[in-house]
């Protein structure tokens, strides 16, 4: 499923505009320990994290993560959004919990 389609199913806001929204999502990974994410997240995953600082973009790029999902109504930082646009990493913000995001992604066949 494409990032834009998942965003629609989640009712999430894509805060990075059109950057990377056609990327195909192959899985979901949820973790807030950055080194753990780099060692375990699968390529082309949607990554759910509560972090909003710029390093999440670097982690996503280096780990070949398709998009970042920030749950629980947390707002992404402006500098992070700018960097994500540059690096073609979509950021989706949603009021849902990580669990709810996973359930919906599962129902979508991810």
């Amino acid at each position, binding site marked *: 499923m494409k990032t834009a389609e998942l965003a629609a199913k989640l009712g999430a806001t894509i805060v990075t505009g059109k950057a990377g929204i056609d990327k195909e999502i192959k899985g979901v990974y949820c973790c807030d*320990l*950055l*080194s753990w994410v*780099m*060692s375990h997240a699968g*390529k082309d995953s949607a990554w759910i*994290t509560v972090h909003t600082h710029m390093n999440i973009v*670097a982690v996503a*790029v*280096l780990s070949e993560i398709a998009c970042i999902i920030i749950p629980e109504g947390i707002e992404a930082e402006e500098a992070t959004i700018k960097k994500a646009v540059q690096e073609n990493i979509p950021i989706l913000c949603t009021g849902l919990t990580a669990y709810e995001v996973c359930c919906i992604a599962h129902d979508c066949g991810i």
Partner: protein
Amino acid sequence: MNLHYEIPSDDLAHAGEASSSVKKMLVQLGIDPVRIKKAAVSMYEAEINAVIHGGGGSAEVTIDSDKIVIRIIDNGPGIADLELAMQEGYTTASDDIREMGFGAGMGLPNMKRYADELDIQTRPDKGTIVTIVVYFHQ
């Protein structure tokens, strides 16, 4: 090809720029994505360690037709007990750093896992040199 990057101390916001830039270079060179990830992730871990634990330093990267050699050099406190530091979960990161999602104690284990060769030279108060080699064809 030889590349040199300064790694600023305690500038976490910009940490990882050297690794990201090297990754882009490897993509341009058409290197196998699996090899690129190995190099990029291990370099990022070493770079972040230089920022958080080593007080900044520099990166020297050599790319040739069959491999990339990455040296991350800092002049920080060194690693007192390397064997202990290599264990998954061992960290001395502060609470502030941990709140940002660093400090899982997984950086060195990740380097070990992703690098084809890893060498760490470290001495108390003299700093640390991490050398990572990733081969492009193997």
